[in-house]
């Protein structure tokens, strides 16, 4: 089962079309393994991207170098998944 320890989801707000292009190009960088949950499409609208732990530093450095505003929406994806798992198991026991 794939795990996502340390993966973060960033909320990114591209200011203009140029910054959207930068984000689209970033997505094409296959080695970064970015997973856009919400694609960058309209300037000023939020985009959400899951960034694998190993790519986080490079991606944040790039965003900062381009002046693209971002914040951390989910600190550690695996923490949410573990909680989800736990709740499902608890419920299955309860239903049985």
């Amino acid at each position, binding site marked *: *089962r*794939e795990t*996502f320890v340390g993966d973060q*989801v960033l*909320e990114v707000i591209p200011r203009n079309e140029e910054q959207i292009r930068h984000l689209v190009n970033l997505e094409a960088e*296959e080695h970064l393994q970015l*997973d*856009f*949950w*919400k*694609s960058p*499409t*309209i300037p000023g609208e939020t985009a*959400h991207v*899951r960034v694998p732990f190993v790519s986080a530093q490079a991606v944040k450095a790039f965003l900062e170098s381009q002046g693209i505003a971002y914040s951390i*929406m*989910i600190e550690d*994806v695996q923490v*949410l*998944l573990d*909680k*989800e798992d736990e*709740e*499902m198991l608890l*419920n*299955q026991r*309860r*239903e049985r």
Partner: protein
Amino acid sequence: SGNFNFAAYHTLEEISQEMDNIVAEHPGLVTKVNIGQSFEKRPMNVLKFSTGGDKPAIWLDAGIHAREWVTQATALWTANKIASDYGSDPSITSILDTMDIFLLPVTNPDGYVFSQTKNRMWRKTRSKVSGSVCVGVDPNRNWDAGFGGPGASNNPCSDSYHGPRANSEVEVKSIVDFIKSHGRIKAFITLHSYSQLLMFPYGYTCAKSDNFDELNEVAQKAARSLTGLHGTKYKVGAICSVIYQASGSTIDWTYSQGIKYSFTFELRDTGRYGFLLPASQIIPTAQETWLALRTIMEHTLNHPY
């Protein structure tokens, strides 16, 4: 129903079992109809709500993007709500006295199982793509409506890969064949998550559809009724203007088939969880979504065409 907890996420087997329970508890109203199999041969079972005969119908599906678990959970809660409220809620009673409702809670069963057992981020189908090491097609880019156009990828490793040809995905083809054979579907609603949007055609072009004004009016009214319950704010509009140009999408095809009332919901992530919405938010999500669904169903009932 018995001890089924609608406020929790469930495995495919548990969902299938609850579907059978709903059928068993509402004989004469709810039946299970098989419309085909997935790529890995899992049944695609639809709940049919009918008071008899073959009436014009409303279609509702969920979970075409596997990882969006709140949609399958919302669809199952909605199935129970429709069955339980028939006979007591005047609105749903009048709808079912005149129309049938078809509800497909798990449109992408293979992807759903894979997202539960192997990779929680999985979105696509699980079909094998010849000539590629990558697996799966984005089923919401695989419909015969502007297929292969903007907003879809021809890279089999992309999450928005449109597939080798329109309807290449057996899950999509099964719905296409059912819709065509039924021939009297008057509204088609598909549930996605997330980002709180209520959208109508078109996605593959930014041109306005012939019914833009009416669809916009219905969607605005539906979104207002949804917001009224828990304050969840929705954005309303045509796919192309609200998010982006996306070709090969479900409701562009259903609209092209003459199903005027074609809508896509992107359910909530209030609380900033994306599609990892905590199970505690399933019921509030389903309750608010139901108010919007009912608004669309009432409009469909009152505006026969």
